[in-house]
């Protein structure tokens, strides 16, 4: 039986839990699970302190107010909290970077990995905003709604990911 103190649950149990979250999302918020549009809400709200004119950009303005946008910001904050509690309950906290990186890329400094993480994060969310969704919005939620655009976006995501991961890293 999966317990709250287990290190890992079967991916099937974990996936079902996430799928069930669609029920409150649709019933209370009238929307599906997603995470990447909250990056616009947060960054545009912060950028406003430096550049107040960002609120004039329609795309930014559409993301800066309203219950749905801030619900998603709270959702991603909750993910941090949930993963923190889960990893501490199972006694599996992490630090630094995953040992995976040394195996996939060979020796490198933490600074190199941090720069790579920043760059990867930039590309990842830029792509997600161009496609209007990420692994959760297009993947988990889009396919569950049978949206053709989501089938296309997820195929492109995995296709490019399969090519890039085999080109960049050694197999671990």
């Amino acid at each position, binding site marked *: 039986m999966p317990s709250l103190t287990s290190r890992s649950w079967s991916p099937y149990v974990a996936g079902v839990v996430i799928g069930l979250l669609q029920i409150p999302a649709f019933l209370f918020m009238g929307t599906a699970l997603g995470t990447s549009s909250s990056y616009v809400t947060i960054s545009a709200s912060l950028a406003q302190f430096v550049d107040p004119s960002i609120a004039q950009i329609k795309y930014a303005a559409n993301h800066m107010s309203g219950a749905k946008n801030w619900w998603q910001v709270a*959702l991603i904050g909750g993910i941090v909290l949930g993963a923190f509690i889960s990893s501490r309950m199972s006694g*599996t906290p992490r630090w630094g*970077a*995953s040992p*995976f990186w040394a195996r996939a890329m060979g020796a490198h400094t933490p600074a190199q990995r941090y720069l790579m993480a920043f760059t990867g*994060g*930039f590309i990842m969310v830029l792509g997600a905003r161009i496609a209007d969704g990420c692994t959760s919005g297009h993947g988990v939620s889009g396919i569950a709604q049978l*949206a053709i655009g989501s089938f296309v976006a997820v195929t492109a995501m995995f296709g490019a990911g399969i090519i890039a991961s085999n080109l960049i890293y050694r197999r671990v």
Partner: protein
Amino acid sequence: MTVFTAMLLGVAMGVIFGFALEKGRVCEAGVIVCQMQMSRHAMLKMFLSAVITGLVVLAFLVGFGFAKLSPKATLFAADIIGGAILGIGIVVAGACPGTVLAQIGTGYKDAIFTFVGGLFGALAFTYAEPTLLKPILTAGSYGKMTLDQLLGLPFPVVALALAAVLAGILVWLEKISPWQDEVGPQGDGLPAETARREPVAAPAA
């Protein structure tokens, strides 16, 4: 619903979401990247389980009139180009826009850089969208197009049929590759023979 109530609900749902991402081990770069290399399939199994559950849940919610779907518009150029850029970003970062937050929660420091990079990526898109990106984003636009509409069948029928097909794929995948082997003894997606922890950074005292 007020913004405050929505945010309370968001935090509650997020905690459950984060718990599931951590227990499912997709908070590990090794699990994400090895999935992309198609060598181990823990992420795909979890992803498809969430999709199958979503399909069944929505078949009932829509079938009995409790909810209305909100599918994203079909924009072929944006979906293909954006999806491909997203896939490359996931491989370089070792995370998705949602799972990076679970990485932060578990304590990975590099994930903070991934998240901040993501905020700048969102900002770059926001500034570029009205001028540079509009022509790409609107090319091949077909509005809200869904598989059930194309087939001319009710949503619940197609949703449950697809769920059955995907469940069949998972049964086969689990048979050829058990999940316990895929997440590895340390739960970091690294196989047993290479799972020794190397001092990438000193553990917190």
